[in-house]
């Protein structure tokens, strides 16, 4: 369904010198530097698959999505989606895809939702019967009814995002691109949106590419992920494998009652018998705030909490899942250890 081969995108960026004089100088003379936003990326997606496309901020995810949706022209490389090249015959191509950019809206700011959908129906030439049916379906999964007559500018972020997703699905596209569809939303809305995406994928066989920073999105929706960093692909495979290999890190954050009691903590010694390797345990203290990152393969959460709570008086404590940045850090370490084989 989606074939991406050796995709590249270079940007020319103006280098600004710091300070007022630097700004003045840059008006008359500017230095250019080339940034490789996307550097030789290849992957493919099958029909009906949901692919998670992840990476840290600035990795080049959005740039790839923009090339796949025909907004940007690649510097080099090829992509064929649904048998078409997005850069050739844009109007024909975009008729069969749906796109949501979480940070922007495709809805008309001043129009009520119903009007927007009516406009989209004309643009995509959806016939009346199909439109009614699709609207009913979207209404049911995304619960649009309460705000369907309000102008878009009065909607909350969660409502707007649901409305945006509905707008991208009105014409029943074959491929759906979602660029951070859950950004800034609360847990309930996130959950609604996830359920909607998976339902649409199941019932319509829509192929989905999803970028996100939220590991929950990935684990509830995608079987396969592609991870990129600095414009290069660093992982392509199942989520399960990645988590097995690198996702076992947890982060313990707590605030100690007083600074002196932190001195009593000695994690290295306490878990010396667990056979710790490089990077399995890191300790950082800043005043009374302490962060401990640890590998749950070696040290269980229970062990960690027992030891910590038994040694210091704690005002506040929480344990966090490894975030994507952490997994990527681990991935690089693993890469070096295993001689570059993933």
């Amino acid at each position, binding site marked *: 369904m989606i074939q991406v081969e050796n995709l590249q995108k270079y*940007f020319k960026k103006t280098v600004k010198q710091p300070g007022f004089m630097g700004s003045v100088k840059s008006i008359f003379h500017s230095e250019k530097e080339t940034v490789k936003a996307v550097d030789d990326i290849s992957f493919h997606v099958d029909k009906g698959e949901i692919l998670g496309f992840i990476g840290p901020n600035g990795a080049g995810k*959005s740039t790839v999505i*923009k090339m796949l*949706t*025909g*907004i*940007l*022209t690649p510097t080099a490389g090829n992509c064929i989606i649904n048998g078409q090249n997005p850069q050739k015959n*844009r*109007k*024909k191509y*975009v*008729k069969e*895809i749906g*796109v949501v*950019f979480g*940070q*922007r*809206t*495709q809805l*008309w*700011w*001043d*129009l009520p939702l119903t*009007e927007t959908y*009516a*406009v989209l129906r*004309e*643009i*995509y*030439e959806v016939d009346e019967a199909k439109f009614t049916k699709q609207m009913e379906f979207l209404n049911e999964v995304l619960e649009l009814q309460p705000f369907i007559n309000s*102008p878009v500018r009065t909607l909350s972020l969660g409502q707007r995002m649901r409305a945006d997703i509905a707008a991208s699905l009105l014409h029943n596209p074959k491929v759906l691109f979602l660029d951070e569809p859950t950004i800034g939303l609360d847990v309930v809305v996130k959950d609604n949106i996830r359920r909607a995406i998976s339902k649409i994928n199941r019932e319509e066989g829509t192929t989905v590419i999803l970028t996100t920073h939220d590991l929950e999105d990935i684990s509830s929706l995608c079987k396969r992920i592609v991870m990129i960093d600095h414009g290069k692909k660093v992982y392509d495979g199942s989520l399960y494998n990645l988590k097995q290999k690198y996702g076992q890190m947890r982060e313990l954050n707590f605030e100690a009652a007083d600074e002196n009691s932190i001195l009593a903590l000695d994690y290295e010694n306490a878990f010396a018998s667990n056979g710790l390797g490089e990077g399995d345990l890191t300790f950082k203290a800043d005043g009374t705030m302490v962060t401990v990152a640890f590998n749950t393969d070696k040290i269980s959460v229970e062990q960690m909490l027992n030891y910590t709570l038994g040694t210091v008086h704690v005002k506040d404590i929480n344990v966090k899942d490894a975030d994507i940045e952490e997994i990527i850090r681990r991935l690089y370490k693993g890469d070096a250890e295993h001689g570059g084989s993933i």
Partner: protein
Amino acid sequence: MRKFLKTYLPFTRAGIHGATAYRANFIAWFIGDIMYCFVMYYVWRAVFASSGSSTFNGFSMTDMVVFLFVTNLTGYLTESDGSFAVGEEVRDGNIAMRLIKPVSFDMTFLFNELGQKSLTFTLIFVPMLAGVEIYKYFTYGRVMFSIGTFALYMLSVAMSYMFSFYMNVCFGFMAFFLKNLWGFNILKSSILRFLSGSVIPLAFMPDTLRSVMEWLPFSSLSYTPVMIYMGKYSGQEAALRLMLQFVWVIGFYIISKIILSAALKHVTVQGG
């Protein structure tokens, strides 16, 4: 053609909605504009008073009043927000949302603006023009309005608008390269106001300058339709002027297409 209209008329509807969403803004803009007309009226009255004669380069004071108001009214219909709208979408990156829809880029802007224009036409243009005609009736003591002249005027206005639209689109696309058009927009509009003859009638210019300005495309923005309305052109000259307008519309349409396709290859979407 029917499919074309079905695709783009919704944008016109959206334009009407958009204009009515901010009513106070609309009214404030209108009042400000009328005030400008009266300021200009008093300026010209002072000019006429100090010149000591009742006509000035073939314009009587009555002509001058008609010129001021009709120029302003024509401006309502022919001015295009294109460069601002395109430039703004490029600057904040929202252009991406237009590119993911199966519609032509310039047509969506055009039809959207036609929505606003249809509102301006019925709510402001028609009543104000009736006012100008009533003023003429009382000064000259007879009805001066001719359907034929008015039809020619509307034809000229339509071409002025198309020219204005495509020129602004060309200019707006420059935002792809310049990233921000704010300063250039101000520069552009002050130059245009002079070159289009909307502040000072081109007839008041020295002969050589006048003929250069009349051949430049910018005179067709405002001066040509206003002169047609005022009956200052002979039939033959009016025909020539209309032809010239048509040529410029086609010219700028082609230029805008070239710039667009070059720009889309250069697109860098700003902000995420």
